[in-house]
């Protein structure tokens, strides 16, 4: 087993990997940019190496500096987390040359699945159903126009190296095509350092269902069942759950077997995910392989009882897979909500800035994978993910109720976050009924932030602000600095009742 691992990432996923290493008795080296000097992951690792200025291209995307940091710290392996270099075949190849173990697929496997176009070709040859689309990337507007016409609008612009919705655009007519392709290119470039994009037929209101796979370096492959990730905004997942309400046992095992077949066709190793689109007629299409540990991996961990990061490390160190397909089962129901630094009231605009108060949700069946601290400034340079709130319970309804309570308990002040919005998503009758598609949010939440509950909350907030000014015990404003004991100055102040409407707030 490795003695030291370098984590080539930041935020909650770096923290997650460091914790796994500590528990395995493996020492850790963190890397950080100048913007992350005071970030949580830096303080938790055994060592931390400054690798460059804030922009990702000069730090977390800089292959040379990361490999050099690994050499300097004597790390035998690099865990790339997700995003940044996680699915970069060149980086995996560089590690292989340098004799550093890349904790992920081989560069060969990455070259196949990391390139969406090559991946689709491979899957078609293996007889796996795929979505109609361009057979190759292109730079010429004409080729895009031609492809779009032959596929028929609406079409989707996708980044060849993409993932996480970056570089994706829906195009419904000729006019929007070229600007969408340009924008996709720019986003793809800044997100992945590769600006190639292509077109695909856009399937209306599909479900997004993916299967987690583990493959060791000795040919053993198993799947750990599905994750439904249909709840998306801006083509990016914001809530995931497992099991999916859309799969009955027969379809579940058929898709699971297909996922294993797909990974075998790609010569895949380590942890990966096969994404499918499930259309209204329960037909499923291969979408792409996510050749990395995914943001939403915890819900699979909670339902199968398998620690995916530990498995990644054991597989990368050459270990044989300790799991047989027959040993793996689903118990209960898990949901993940992504807490982003975004403003749901303003079309999910990014919301960087200082976190002035942080109260983390906790309790039985509640897991909060976080990369932030109270008093910390959320930098403008990186992904807006702050934390992931994951709950497990015996069944879906219990999990929804647990998530709803946990989201109410999740308090992050100073910036906008998606927490309150997600609270309304899990309370929504359509969601409770399991009727989730990728157009759930655009359809059900076109305008969020109004309604009786909202108005009551706003009124209580105003009352609280006024009460705070009147009764604040110390002159020093209500920064989180003052501890729970400070309140004693204010006695109970007892009166009658709020108008009944106030109860709207608490409907669950």
């Amino acid at each position, binding site marked *: 087993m490795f003695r030291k691992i370098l984590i080539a990432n930041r935020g909650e996923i770096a923290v997650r990997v460091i914790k796994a290493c500590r528990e395995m008795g493996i020492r850790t080296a963190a890397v950080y940019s100048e913007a992350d000097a005071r970030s949580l992951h830096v303080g938790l690792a055994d060592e931390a190496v400054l690798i460059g200025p804030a922009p990702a291209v000069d730090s977390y995307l800089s292959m040379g500096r990361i490999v050099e940091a690994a050499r300097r710290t004597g790390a035998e392996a690099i865990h790339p987390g997700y995003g940044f270099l996680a699915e970069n075949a060149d980086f995996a190849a560089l590690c292989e040359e340098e004799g550093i173990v890349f904790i992920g697929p081989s560069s060969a496997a990455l070259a196949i699945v990391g390139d969406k176009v090559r991946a689709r070709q491979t899957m078609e040859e293996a007889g796996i159903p795929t979505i109609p689309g361009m057979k190759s990337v292109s730079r010429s507007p004409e080729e895009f126009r031609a492809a779009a016409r032959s596929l028929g609008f609406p079409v989707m612009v996708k980044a060849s190296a993409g993932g996480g919705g970056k570089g994706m655009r829906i195009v419904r007519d000729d006019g929007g095509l070229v600007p969408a392709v340009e924008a996709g290119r720019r986003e793809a470039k800044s997100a992945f350092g590769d600006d190639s994009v292509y077109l695909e037929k856009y399937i209306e209101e599909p479900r997004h269902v993916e299967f987690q796979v583990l493959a060791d370096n000795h040919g053993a492959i198993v799947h750990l069942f599905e994750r439904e990730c249909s709840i998306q905004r801006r083509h990016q997942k914001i809530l995931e759950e497992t099991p999916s309400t859309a799969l009955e046992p027969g379809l579940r095992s058929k898709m699971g077997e297909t996922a294993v077949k797909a990974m075998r066709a790609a010569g895949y190793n380590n942890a990966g995910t096969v994404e499918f689109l499930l259309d209204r007629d329960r037909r499923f299409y291969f979408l792409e392989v996510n050749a990395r540990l995914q943001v939403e991996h915890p819900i699979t961990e909670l339902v199968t009882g398998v620690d995916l990061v530990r498995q990644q490390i054991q597989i990368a160190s050459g270990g044989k897979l300790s799991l047989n397909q027959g040993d793996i089962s689903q118990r209960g129901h898990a949901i993940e909500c992504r807490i982003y630094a975004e403003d749901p009231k*303003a079309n999910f605009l990014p919301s960087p800035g200082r976190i002035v108060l942080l109260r983390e949700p906790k309790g039985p069946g509640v897991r909060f994978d976080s990369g932030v601290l109270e008093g910390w400034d959320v930098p403008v340079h990186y992904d807006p993910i702050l934390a992931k709130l994951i709950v497990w319970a015996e069944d879906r309804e219990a999990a929804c109720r647990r998530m709803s309570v946990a989201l109410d308990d999740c308090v992050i002040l100073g910036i906008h976050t998606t927490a309150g919005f997600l609270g309304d998503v899990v309370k929504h009758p359509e969601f409770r009924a399991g009727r989730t598609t990728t157009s759930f949010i655009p359809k059900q939440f076109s305008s969020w932030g109004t309604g009786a509950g909202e108005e009551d*909350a706003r009124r209580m907030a105003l009352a*609280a602000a006024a009460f705070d000014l009147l009764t604040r*015990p110390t002159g020093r404003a209500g920064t989180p600095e003052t501890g729970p004991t400070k309140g004693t*100055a204010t006695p109970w102040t007892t009166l009658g009742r709020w108008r009944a409407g106030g109860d709207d707030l608490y409907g669950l």
Partner: protein
Amino acid sequence: MDFEFLIDGSPRRISLENRDGAVYFREGEVAVEAEVRRISSAELLFTFGGRTSRIHLARDGERAFVSVAGREFVITEPLPGTRGPLEGDEAGVQGSFLVKSPMPGRVIKLSVGEGQPVRKNQALAIVEAMKMENEIQSPAEGIVKKIHVSVGEFVDSEKPLMEIESTK
């Protein structure tokens, strides 16, 4: 006592009384009496209708951040004669608009030049933050009078990107 607040940028006038140790809230028609308990400088318990709700509150400078039942609000006291910056907000300059970025970020594209006529909602610039591109559109039909930023520059939500002189 009367309070004038901006909540998420929109003005509200309320009154809160501390009558013989008790708290009465009023806003126009809506009268409120609630049991209020401070359990820390950052946490208040409001009880009404037998229901207790936990309110979190923290200040950063003159802004108060308040969380109620999973919803967050920013509350400020308005500076006399001014208002919080809003995209395409009229800024006292007659017939012209100061265009600002809705969030901090980096200007990655300027789609127009000074002196150029623009339609309402025409793309003026693209600002990127946290890997998301956000298109800044013209608040009105007019002419680009002045451009205050250049590509690659970081902007906050205060600094004007450009000035549009209305022609309608």
